[in-house]
């Protein structure tokens, strides 16, 4: 194929009419772009660590403090009761210990559930935020 034919073909092809999209094509593209932009802005302005997360975290810290206080009080009370009531029966002492040991596991369980829930909420929040950004 010679160069002249190539030039002719080029000129020839430039006469060709391309396929045209619908009349509102540019507007549709721009609307989609603006919609994506505003969605992205909204995600950026939305705090990943929302109010709920902080409430759960504070609750968790309070519960941890409560466990610490209750367990310390229990130990002190345990030692004090022996001094105060030397004649008290062993049954009372055991009952007292068992009550506090049972009571002691309750805040621990609540704390466990709370921390589990807060971690799950936190992970869910991060995943949903990222999926919006990368979609």
């Amino acid at each position, binding site marked *: 194929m010679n160069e002249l034919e190539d030039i002719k*073909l080029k000129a*020839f092809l430039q006469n060709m009419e391309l*396929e045209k999209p619908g009349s509102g*094509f540019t507007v*549709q593209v*721009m609307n989609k772009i603006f919609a994506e932009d505003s969605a992205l802005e909204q995600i950026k302005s939305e705090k990943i660590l929302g109010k709920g997360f902080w409430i759960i975290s504070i609750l968790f810290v309070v519960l941890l403090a409560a466990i610490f206080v209750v367990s310390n009080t229990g130990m002190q009370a345990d030692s004090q009761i022996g001094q105060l009531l030397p004649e008290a029966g062993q049954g009372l002492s055991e009952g007292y210990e068992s009550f506090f040991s049972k009571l002691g596991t309750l805040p621990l369980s609540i704390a466990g559930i709370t921390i589990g829930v807060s971690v799950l909420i936190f992970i869910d929040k991060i995943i949903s935020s990222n999926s919006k950004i990368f979609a």
Partner: protein
Amino acid sequence: MEQKDDIYYIEKVKAGQTNYFSYIVERYQDIVFSIAMKVLKNREDAEEMAQESFIKAYKSLHTFKGTAKFSTWLYRITYNNCISEVRKRKMHFASTDDVQIADEAEEMNLDGIPEENRAQAIKAAMDKLPEDEYTLILLYYFEEQSIEEISKVTKLSESNTKVKLFRARKKLYTILNELMKDELYTIL
């Protein structure tokens, strides 16, 4: 209005003036749509794919460094998008030799085609080309892209692009020859 080059609009968009992207869309919508239309063979799907290509280009505009032509970069996005869609839908992407290349194809006399029929004839011939060859011809002759640029769009090596382009050109000549013969029979 004075036509500015692509970089001017891209810089504006990068600076936060999103509106300027509409100039880019206006400039390239026909060619992007034509490629999508050729591959997907359906107006609605092609329009959706073309829109998606522009949105993808907008989103990745920060990665465009300006070392290559913007059009090359945009066509690559479009071409890849279309190929992925075809694969997703398990459609046939025609790159086979559906048209037998005649020996005399190289001797086609383009001047023999009446001027008033040229646009129609070339469109009819282009429509008969397989998707990949259509894209090669469109980019090389219509968009005046270089072999290097086309190889970036199609992810073919430069030598492979050259060979494919040569074959596509011969095939186009064959189709045009046949079309002209048919036309002559109709006239006679």
